[in-house]
């Protein structure tokens, strides 16, 4: 364990992700955050669990990415005084996670600068907490009024533009409060939580063997990444190694998911800058791509394709050639479209310098994933901690530094080409053998973690087994948590009409964050 000077008693977990787990006390908890920060680490997720039935405590967990892998710290918090030291002063990206943790579990972050509710609107009262085991999750409560105190910007000529939760297009719901002078954005404050579905609590109704179905619907556009992270977590706690063929097929699905999302977003980005040609052309390619996924994997988005123990269905041999050919033809076409993008001065005029996230800002806010790599944050789990089969594929990391819409577009093009190359390599190297194995019995209390680089960024699943192969606690984390606050900074100083373009260049998940 690379966290020096803390005397951590950490144990390394088996599984695809390089994870170590340590129980800490309050002072270690607070110091660990600083040590991670000083070592250029980042926070991946923060969540909690009600363990009062076991040892009269709640547990608060923080998962950090450091050089050697993922370190998960567990801080037991006495039930009588449910609070822990804030880490948001060290990692601002943790602030909303801390607020959500309080909404759901009633454990407070001491000393936090913002303690407003986050996920809770009016569906449950401020003194009830859905993740407590004595909370009746099936009782229907009256919707309470929700008076959320937005931060006000004052000054000559400043006015507010409230947008949402329902937006003008076919898009997820959320509220954006712009404070503007003329057309210029002074501040954007997002209010999310509209799509909160109680997923963390809902996992308790699932078995270890079926939880991937729920995890894969935290954010539908990342269903493969989420289901794979879940499968890794399940396999880790079961001490099970999935068959080689299965993980190669999973990688094929993950890269195809990446391609599908980039195709859709590149088209939409062109469209948001008034190049509707791009939308039609990219959506045509995406439709072809989804249809092929349906033919090869039985589902257009490959939902429920990754299962604990392997994959739901083996890939038929006669699918290899059409999948290979499609990767070639899509690459040929996209390269042609990229030339159109590059030569289109109107488009470049909108892209360049819009929604700029400097490297310093990205680092300070702990931005990773696609948006992070457009701002010089060179993290990609497929390269940094390559799990099978990425250890055999040698993924090329794509990093740009300008941090504007143009840079995020560039990252998408480059990652799209790299994903197509990976698709071809995987198809060429796909090993023979079983595609799925049976699951052994899950020891109650066993924990496992999964950590997968999805198209948007790093996806984490933490899983704890209960009695009778059921799930005691599961938390699935979408990278949108860290990126939403960055979007608020990215639009400062831009004009309101550029917001849709900037927003789309990130394309963050509401559902993934609202959980």
């Amino acid at each position, binding site marked *: 364990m690379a966290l020096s000077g803390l005397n951590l008693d950490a144990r390394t977990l088996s599984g695809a992700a390089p994870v170590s787990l340590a129980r800490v006390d309050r002072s270690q908890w607070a110091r660990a955050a600083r040590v991670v920060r000083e070592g250029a680490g980042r926070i991946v997720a923060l969540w909690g669990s009600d363990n009062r039935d076991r040892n009269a405590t709640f547990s608060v967990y923080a998962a950090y990415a450091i050089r050697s892998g993922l370190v998960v710290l567990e801080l037991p918090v006495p039930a009588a005084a449910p609070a822990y030291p804030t880490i948001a002063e060290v990692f601002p990206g943790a602030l909303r996670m801390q607020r959500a943790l309080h909404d759901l579990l009633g454990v407070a972050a001491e000393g936090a600068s913002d303690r407003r509710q986050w996920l809770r609107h009016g569906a449950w009262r401020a003194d009830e907490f859905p993740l407590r085991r004595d909370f009746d*999750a099936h009782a229907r409560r009256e919707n309470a009024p929700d008076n959320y105190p937005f931060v006000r910007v004052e000054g000559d000529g400043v006015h507010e533009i409230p947008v949402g939760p329902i937006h003008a297009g*076919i898009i997820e719901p959320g509220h954006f409060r712009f404070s503007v002078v003329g057309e210029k954005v002074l501040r954007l404050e997002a209010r999310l939580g509209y799509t*909160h579905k*109680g997923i963390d609590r809902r996992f308790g109704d699932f078995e270890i063997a079926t939880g991937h179905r729920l995890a894969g619907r935290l954010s539908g556009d990342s*269903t493969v990444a989420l289901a794979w992270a879940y499968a890794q977590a399940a396999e880790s706690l079961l001490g099970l190694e999935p068959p080689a063929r299965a993980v190669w097929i999973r990688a094929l699905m993950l890269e195809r998911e990446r391609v599908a999302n980039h195709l859709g977003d590149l088209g939409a980005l062109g469209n948001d800058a008034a190049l509707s040609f791009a939308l039609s052309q990219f959506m045509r390619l995406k439709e072809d791509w989804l249809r092929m996924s349906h033919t090869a994997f039985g589902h257009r988005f490959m939902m429920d394709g990754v299962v604990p123990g392997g994959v739901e269905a083996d890939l038929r041999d006669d699918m290899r050639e059409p999948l290979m050919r499609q990767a070639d033809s899509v690459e040929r076409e996209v390269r042609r479209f990229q030339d159109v993008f590059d030569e289109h001065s109107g488009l470049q005029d909108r892209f360049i310098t819009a929604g700029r996230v400097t490297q310093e800002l990205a680092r300070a806010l702990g931005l990773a994933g696609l948006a992070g790599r457009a701002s010089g944050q060179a993290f990609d789990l497929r390269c940094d901690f390559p799990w099978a089969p990425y250890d055999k594929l040698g993924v090329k990391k794509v990093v740009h530094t300008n941090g504007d819409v143009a840079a995020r577009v560039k990252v998408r093009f480059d990652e799209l080409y790299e994903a197509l190359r990976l698709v071809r390599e995987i198809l060429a190297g796909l090993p023979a053998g079983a595609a799925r194995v049976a699951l052994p019995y899950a020891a109650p209390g066993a924990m496992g973690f999964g950590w997968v680089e999805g198209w948007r960024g790093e996806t984490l699943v933490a899983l704890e087994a209960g009695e009778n192969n059921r799930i005691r606690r599961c938390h699935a984390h979408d990278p949108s948590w860290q990126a939403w606050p960055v979007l608020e900074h990215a639009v400062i100083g831009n004009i309101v009409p550029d917001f849709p373009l900037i927003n789309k260049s990130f394309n963050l998940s509401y559902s993934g964050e609202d959980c």
Partner: protein
Amino acid sequence: MIPIILQVLRTGIISEPTPEAREEWRVRSAQIQAEIVRLLGRALVIRHVDAGSCNGCELEIHALNNPYYNIEGLGIRFAASPRHADMLLVTGPVSRHMERALRIVYEAMPDPKLVVAVGDCGRDGGVFGESYATCGGVSKVLPVDVVVPGCPPPPLDILRGILTAIAS
């Protein structure tokens, strides 16, 4: 500009004949258009509301707007305002936090209005069920005309659901 024009020519018209996936879905586009005109005057305008979906259904509604399905050619269009809409297309299990907004949208629509619930979640809450956070389906909140099952339902099924609603 020349590469764009060349690409447009190269692509040609790719719109497919209206629903062709299954024989019982095969309806000539002229008939559909006539049906829409007969029932609604000129065209069908849809307002979509995500009431807590995982965003999978949104991907398929987007896909429905791609050139293959040519829905504008059928006279179907998605609108930004509920005041312009004949039909409300709802996805998601209806999260409790979207319940009020969904009702407001419905009330803002002029009569007569149709409601189509899209996806297994819209049907009965799907994988999310009914809980402290979700209502467990659109019909728990609004009168629903047609339910399109699937997780998510592919574009053709969504189109079929829309056509079923206007034909009823």
